[in-house]
């Protein structure tokens, strides 16, 4: 039996705002092993034409997956997660960092209880930072 909340197609999952700080980027760099300096070094980020240090796309994806997992109530119910990285999240060198708004809409509910969510992640400028983000839970 699926332990997922009861939902119907079109339902919206309560949204959440998640801050991403420089300290969070350093922590994720160490945890993931992605040490690309564009995620922690302003000089390198500017040199390659970025507006500043940007978050790992995989960190944004992980935060979105975590948001979905918490809604599900059990992280092992997340069976698949896919996304496109559409825009970088620029993380300023201050204590607040950048906030992303996460949300999701139910796209499908199958007979076996499988729920498909379309997930959205919006950056501080109001533009989407993940595209075609889909989570399947069962």
């Amino acid at each position, binding site marked *: 039996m699926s332990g997922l909340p009861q939902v119907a197609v079109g339902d919206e999952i309560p949204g959440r705002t998640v801050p991403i700080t420089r300290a969070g980027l350093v922590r994720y760099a160490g945890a993931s092993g992605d040490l690309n300096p564009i995620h922690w070094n302003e000089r390198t980020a500017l040199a390659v034409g970025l507006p500043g240090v940007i978050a790992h796309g995989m*960190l944004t994806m992980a935060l979105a997956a975590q948001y979905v997992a918490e809604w599900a109530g*059990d992280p092992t119910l997340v069976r698949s997660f896919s996304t496109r990285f559409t825009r970088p999240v620029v993380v300023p060198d201050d204590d607040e960092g950048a906030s992303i708004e996460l949300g999701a809409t139910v796209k499908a509910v199958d007979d076996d209880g499988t729920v498909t969510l379309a997930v959205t992640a919006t950056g501080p400028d109001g533009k989407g930072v993940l595209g075609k983000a889909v989570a399947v839970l069962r």
Partner: protein
Amino acid sequence: MPLDASFVGRSWAPRTYAVGREKVREFARAVGATDPVHTDPDAAQAAGHTDVVAPPTFPVVFTWDATREVVDDPALGLDFTRVVHRDQSFELHRPVVAGDVLTTVVTVDEIRELAGNDVVTFRCDVTDPDGTTVLVSRATLVGRAGE
């Protein structure tokens, strides 16, 4: 210079990764995953798992390394310093838990050219020691054309 389409379907040598409890905890902390199944072995066992459970995107810790090794293969011809990560997916057949010893095989799924850029999708097939599929991940990278 466009990539050689004959690479589609090619796989590289398997790599093995041992999932450690502290690495799972470290990753869980970094992504704000506060469910105790990620950090407390007792809570994980009470939920029916053999040890702490990795968050859904944890496999990137080893699939990215395996993919990076392929990207760096000079035969393929991608310049990693000009690569942008465009898409990522994970299809989890079961949760990854501490104590797992997982083997990753990277295969080139697709090569396309889009506006002069190389677009390559790498598939990682991750199996346990029995050969049972644990997860399949895909990463699509765009090699930006040189100026």
